[in-house]
């Protein structure tokens, strides 16, 4: 997969490589300059060392020359160089010793030279003192010994070696400086050319790449700006429709809020009614329980009445048995009376009065029989009434039982009604609470819809602004495309 570089990366690479080369060249130049400075410093040091050696040698020579002039002439003015040399030789030696601190070989020579110079300066004073004390000849003999000359020759040899070595180092450093300068010139020259070539190459590559990528991006920008313009137009229409819908929804939500409040008030009334119904249901349940107790009492009374009625039936049967007995007696009396009548009839006139008595007995028996029939009828009526009463009372007892069961069922129903009414009250309370929450939620939703409407209006304005921006962007994309094509063509 080909990696696509960003414009920043391309520019960084395009400018970075020449800059790195320039930095490298700069560092190289700095290093080379620093080396050249160091070489120059060492050359200057070498020259200084040579100058110091020459100065030391010159001081020794001045001292020797002054000594010889004084010995020859005896004039003190010839001792001035000698005294100057004596005064400055130690300082010069010290400076020269400091300059040789880094070279062991030259340090060794310097140590020898330092001893010789000090000794030479010190020994030069002896002939001077002899001249002042013993005169010219003694002093000349002392000088003629040649000890000073030997030291002087040794000093010249050592100083020559030191100067030669310094000059050799100087020549070597000059060679190094020339080589370094040539290398610096080559590097800087080729580096500068390479940097220019690399910069041109990077600029070409970056320009072509940017031309290609920016051209594609500009085309995409044109397409995107056109689509953005279309989308902005559509969004503007949608925002207008959203504003209208939001206004309608806000009105609907306000109506919904009013309806929810009405529902909440209705639910509250339902709760109150349900509470009253629950109280009434409980009162009804207590009334039913009392009525059931009363019915139980009535049932017990009815049972007692049934018992009394059954007892009455049994007593009626007893009375009927007695009446049967009386009827039987009357019937037998009647039969006896009939037989008496028959016997009286058989007795003729003698039995006539007996027949009258027998007839009275028979009629009494008839009346008793008729009365027993009436009484039996009455008893039957009583028994029938008792049986009817018993059946009616049993029906009443059954009705009381049924009524008691119905009261039990009614009590259960009232309990259920009370429970249902309480459940209804609870449910209505929950409905009321839910409706209030719903009302609050609807109010919040109404507020949110109003905010949505406001947002839709802002969106409408933003859409219009975005449409204008899209148009400007489209124009800008066209201008950019024209600019790129013109630059590419150029």
């Amino acid at each position, binding site marked *: 997969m080909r990696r696509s570089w960003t414009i920043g990366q391309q520019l960084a690479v395009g400018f970075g490589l020449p800059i790195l080369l320039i930095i490298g060249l700069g560092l190289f130049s700095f290093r080379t300059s620093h080396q050249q400075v160091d070489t120059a410093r060492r050359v200057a040091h070498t020259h200084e060392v040579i100058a110091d050696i020459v100065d030391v040698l010159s001081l020794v020579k001045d001292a020797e020359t002054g000594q010889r002039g004084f010995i020859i002439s005896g004039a003190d003015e010839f001792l001035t160089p000698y005294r100057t040399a004596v005064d400055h030789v130690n300082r010069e030696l010290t400076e020269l010793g400091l300059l040789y601190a880094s070279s062991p070989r030259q340090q060794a020579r310097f140590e020898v030279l330092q001893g010789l110079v000090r000794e030479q300066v010190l020994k030069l004073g002896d002939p001077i003192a002899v001249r002042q004390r013993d005169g010219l000849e003694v002093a000349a003999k002392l000088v003629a010994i040649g000890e000073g000359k030997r030291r002087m020759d040794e000093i010249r040899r050592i100083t020559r070696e030191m100067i030669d070595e310094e000059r050799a180092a100087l020549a070597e450093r000059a060679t190094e400086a020339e080589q370094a300068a040539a290398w610096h010139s080559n590097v800087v020259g080729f580096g500068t050319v390479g940097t220019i070539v690399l910069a041109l190459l990077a600029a070409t590559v970056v320009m072509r790449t940017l031309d290609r990528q920016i051209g594609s991006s500009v085309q995409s920008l044109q397409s995107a700006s056109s689509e953005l313009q279309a989308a902005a137009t559509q969004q503007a229409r949608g925002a207008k429709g959203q504003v209208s819908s939001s206004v309608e929804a806000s009105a609907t939500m306000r109506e919904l809020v009013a309806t929810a409040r009405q529902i909440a008030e209705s639910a509250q009334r339902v709760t109150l009614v349900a509470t009253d119904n629950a109280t009434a249901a409980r009162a009804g349940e207590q009334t039913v329980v009392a009525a059931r107790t009363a019915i139980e009492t009535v049932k017990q009374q009815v049972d007692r009445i049934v018992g009394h009625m059954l007892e009455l039936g049994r007593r009626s049967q007893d009375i009927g048995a007695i009446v049967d007995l009386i009827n039987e007696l009357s019937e037998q009396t009647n039969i006896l009376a009939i*037989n008496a009548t*028959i016997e009286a009839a058989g007795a003729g006139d003698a039995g006539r009065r007996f027949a009258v008595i027998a007839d009275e007995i028979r009629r009494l028996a008839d*009346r008793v029989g008729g009365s027993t029939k*009436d009484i039996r009828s*009455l008893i039957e009526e009583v028994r029938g009434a008792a049986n009817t009463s018993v059946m009616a009372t049993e029906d009443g007892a059954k009705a009381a039982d049924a009524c008691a069961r119905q009261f039990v069922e009614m009590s259960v129903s009232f309990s259920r009604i009370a429970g249902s009414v309480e459940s209804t009250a609870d449910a209505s309370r929950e409905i009321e609470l839910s409706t209030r929450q719903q009302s609050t939620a609807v109010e919040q939703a109404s507020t949110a819809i109003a905010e949505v409407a406001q947002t839709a209006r802002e969106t409408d304005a933003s859409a219009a602004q975005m449409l204008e921006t899209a148009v400007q962007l489209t124009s800008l994309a066209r201008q950019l495309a024209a600019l790129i094509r013109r630059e590419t063509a150029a």
Partner: protein
Amino acid sequence: MSWRSVAVVRAKLRELGRAFDDGFALPEPDRTSQAVLLLGVRTGHAQFAVQIADLAGVHPSGWVARLPGGPPGLLGLAGVRGKLRAVYHLGHLLGVKSAAEAPRWLLLARYGEGVAFAVDEVDAHLRAQADEIIPREGARPGERVGWVLEQGTRRLAVLDIGSLLSTIEQGAARGPRVR
């Protein structure tokens, strides 16, 4: 017992007491009148009247010993006042469908020694004038129901005990039934 029944019973008692007391206050009946005494009986669903003069007595029907192979209508023999009597079912003799239960009373015939007629009920003691007993229309002489008692709305056939006895005697003369 309701207060109404108690009142009815008390009224009956008062009525019985008053009738009993009135019985002593009534004048003696006319001994010269020719009243006919009759006894109203019922066998099955039919009612008849029997002249008391034809009867020797009325007796409860007790245990009747059956006589296998006897004449038609003969229920058996019963002991009445120390004598054996042949007990005939009156309804059977008259061709009346008898009730399911056994007869309760025995009518002892005055002139037929040893014969009694079993009836279901003795339900009336009747006193009639002679002109209230009239011959039945179309009745032939010697028929068992030849007279009719007409007394107001009451109309009862009057049995001829003698004719019944004759029928029994004729049946007894023909001998026992052959099965």
